[in-house]
């Protein structure tokens, strides 16, 4: 779900040409978390519903199109959404349900073509150049995807069909909700040029401000501006990039994703925290979460990084590469803790902390330097035993003693990207 979705403005699009050569599909679930929740609450269909935490710092994670009519959108603070419409139904998020639904949807995509590039839980690019003979034209394949996702998962999605990733993504936004849009190769500029500059990939608030000051309002305006002027305004890389995109040129291929590159977890505190003991406990909890996910997925990671957001929103990350890839909570935590200590940020108020493990590889296939008796290998054995207990008795059945107290009154909200 992009930050700046292009709402359908109702004007019918006249895009001459057919779908020849439009082998890139962008499939995007509509109001994904909300749609998943509505499967179990059919009585709420057609009503304004949002998914998000109700806590002091909760944000809207998804909003139905009925809720969006009130100006509510995702990433908006919950308090603001409730001011816009106090009667909206709020559902607390259930992340496991969403991952499960996402896996199902991605499986459908992969049954269409092996070249699937997921962008997040709820959207992916597909290259269907090789599926034509089997499944039909790109438009037919897009229809098939929408029908199968609706049928097998009970979820609505929109699909954009185009010659490049960038146009396909714009087309799916334009098709929302529950729609399909093909942008034929010969109609790319006709489709693209009337759109506002904010729709261009890579135009954030700052770039938009700069371009608006130059009097540029639409993508057509950018296309009509010389590349050198753009480069002078926003820099070499961004200038060339914008110019190419404004003419519909996008060289990126759809690439099937490797398994996870990293596993991370972060925590926004209910209130800003300066207490080192609280911060360390949180680092331990997040380390445990990441390492358990590594073990569950049969992977080991080589680099541990921490993310710290201060009360003033300054955000920093620090990382350290280990001698040996690990899936041991103890090692992840010791590294995270020492990275935190090295910041010398004692006494500063923190808003968020995060732990991430990168450089992942399969535990089976990664050579492992054995150690003399004691140390890491023994921690690993203990933690595998904990994983088994957790599988049997549920989350938190066995955990580090430092984490036992806090859960009674946990008030913080968890984000797991």
């Amino acid at each position, binding site marked *: 779900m992009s930050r700046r979705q292009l709402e359908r403005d109702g004007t019918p699009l006249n895009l001459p040409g057919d779908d020849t050569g439009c082998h890139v599909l962008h499939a995007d679930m509509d109001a994904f978390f909300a749609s998943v929740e509505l499967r179990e609450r059919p009585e709420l269909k057609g009503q304004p519903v949002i998914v998000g935490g109700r806590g002091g710092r909760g944000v809207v994670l998804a909003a139905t199109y009925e809720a969006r009519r009130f100006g509510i959108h995702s990433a908006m603070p919950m308090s603001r959404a409730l001011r816009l419409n106090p009667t909206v139904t709020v559902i607390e998020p259930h992340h496991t349900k969403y991952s499960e639904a996402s896996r199902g949807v991605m499986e459908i995509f992969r049954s269409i073509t092996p070249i699937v590039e997921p962008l997040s839980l709820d959207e992916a690019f597909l290259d269907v150049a090789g599926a034509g003979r089997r499944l039909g034209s790109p438009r037919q394949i897009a229809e098939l995807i929408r029908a199968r996702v609706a049928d097998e998962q009970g979820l609505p999605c929109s699909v954009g069909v185009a010659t490049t990733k960038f146009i396909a993504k714009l087309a799916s936004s334009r098709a929302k909700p529950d729609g399909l849009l093909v942008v034929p190769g010969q109609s790319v500029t006709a489709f693209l040029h009337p759109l506002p500059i904010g729709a261009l990939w890579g135009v954030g608030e700052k770039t938009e401000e700069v371009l608006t000051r130059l009097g540029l309002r639409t993508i057509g305006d950018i296309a009509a501006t010389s590349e050198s002027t753009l480069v002078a305004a926003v820099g070499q890389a961004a200038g060339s990039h914008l110019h190419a995109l404004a003419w519909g040129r996008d060289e990126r291929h759809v690439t099937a994703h490797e398994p996870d590159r990293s596993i991370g977890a972060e925590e926004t505190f209910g209130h800003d925290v300066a207490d080192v003991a609280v911060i360390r406990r949180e680092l331990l909890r997040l380390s445990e979460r990441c390492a358990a996910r590594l073990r569950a997925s049969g992977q080991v990671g*080589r680099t541990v990084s921490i993310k710290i957001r201060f009360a003033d929103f300054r955000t920093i990350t620090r990382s350290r590469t280990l001698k*040996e*890839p690990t899936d041991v909570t103890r090692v992840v935590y*010791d590294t995270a803790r*020492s990275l935190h200590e090295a910041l010398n940020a004692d006494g500063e108020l923190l808003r968020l902390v995060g732990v991430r493990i990168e450089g992942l590889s*399969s535990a*089976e*296939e*990664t*050579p*492992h*330097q*054995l*150690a*003399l*008796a*004691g*140390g890491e290998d023994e921690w690993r054995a203990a933690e595998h035993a904990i994983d088994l207990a957790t599988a049997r008795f549920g989350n938190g059945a066995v955990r580090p003693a430092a984490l036992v107290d806090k859960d009674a009154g946990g008030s913080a909200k968890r984000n797991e990207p």
Partner: protein
Amino acid sequence: MKLRVERDSFSDAVAWAARILPQKAALPVLAGLRLEVGPDGALELSGFDYEVSAQAQLEATVAEAGSILVPGRLLAEIVRSLPPQPIDLSTDGARVVVSCGSSRFTLPTLPLDEYPTLPAMPQVAGTVGSDAFAAAVAAVAIAAGRDDALPVLTGIRVEIDGEQVTLAATDRYRLAVRTLKWAPVDPGMQATALVPARTLAEAAKSLTSGAEVTLSLSAGGPGEGLIGLSGAQRSTTSRLLDGEFPKYRSLLPDSSSATATIDSAALTDAVRRVALVASRTSPIRLSFSPDGVSLEAGGVDEAEAQESLPAEFEGEALTIAFNATYLLDGLGSLDSDEATLAFTGPTKPAVLTGKTGSDGGTDHRYLLMPVRLSS
């Protein structure tokens, strides 16, 4: 203070004493090198950082006795670059003038009254041949840990049992143990100490100008233990590390299922070559059989290397993998033209030994944990 010294011996002494001075001193005076001269014409240089102290003595022609504290690293750099002519040192108020030939430097001095008292040299425990000691310490120090989070493993364990000294170090992945003969003051002496490995290695290496090194030891309570080493006009002390060194003797296997004896220079060269295709984390694989040893590294999607060497092999054939750097460290520490590897299994520690030393008193073992390959 006013004196004249010979350039080369002064330069050596300054470099030796200043080498322990911290790059960034916790207290400004700790960046200082103390120069003290008595009326008898002996100049003593001292450096100290609360962990390690170093002192050097040399002859000087003294016109006026006294003591000063000067910025040590700066003095070392200046003296090193001076021409080969006598050096004159003299104080001028709060400054010191260093002149040599037509060069003249003026340095500020540091407040001597704020300088800490150097620890007294502990009681002498015995003497050891300086070259053998330096070689033993260097051979063991390579196995010491470098991670300050595990301070105990950054040390060398020194065990004195009568006329034998055993040195041991481990970083949990390998363990090096060497025993050598020495001459204790008390022939029945029993003592142990844990000495920071890097400090001990540097000190032992720099004390080889004399034939012997004198070891001094004081146990004391936690944080108070001290070791002293002295030889030919140089002496140094180091604080001991606290904590329990792993019980390493039980890790040394008492039997083996196979042994291989290989020309150690040929094996070193082969490991070095084959390791060129091993990334930092991927190991080199050694397959032993009565036909010899074959070395391999790399994999299907990467560069691969393979090399075979003759070996005298006895026992069950096996394939075992090691981190190449750890294996090379071990081979480099053997000091022998033949290397013997003893195995008990592909996931059990291997023991690397050389031929028994020519002096008959040296016994060196390098225990190396293998890398477990993918299943």
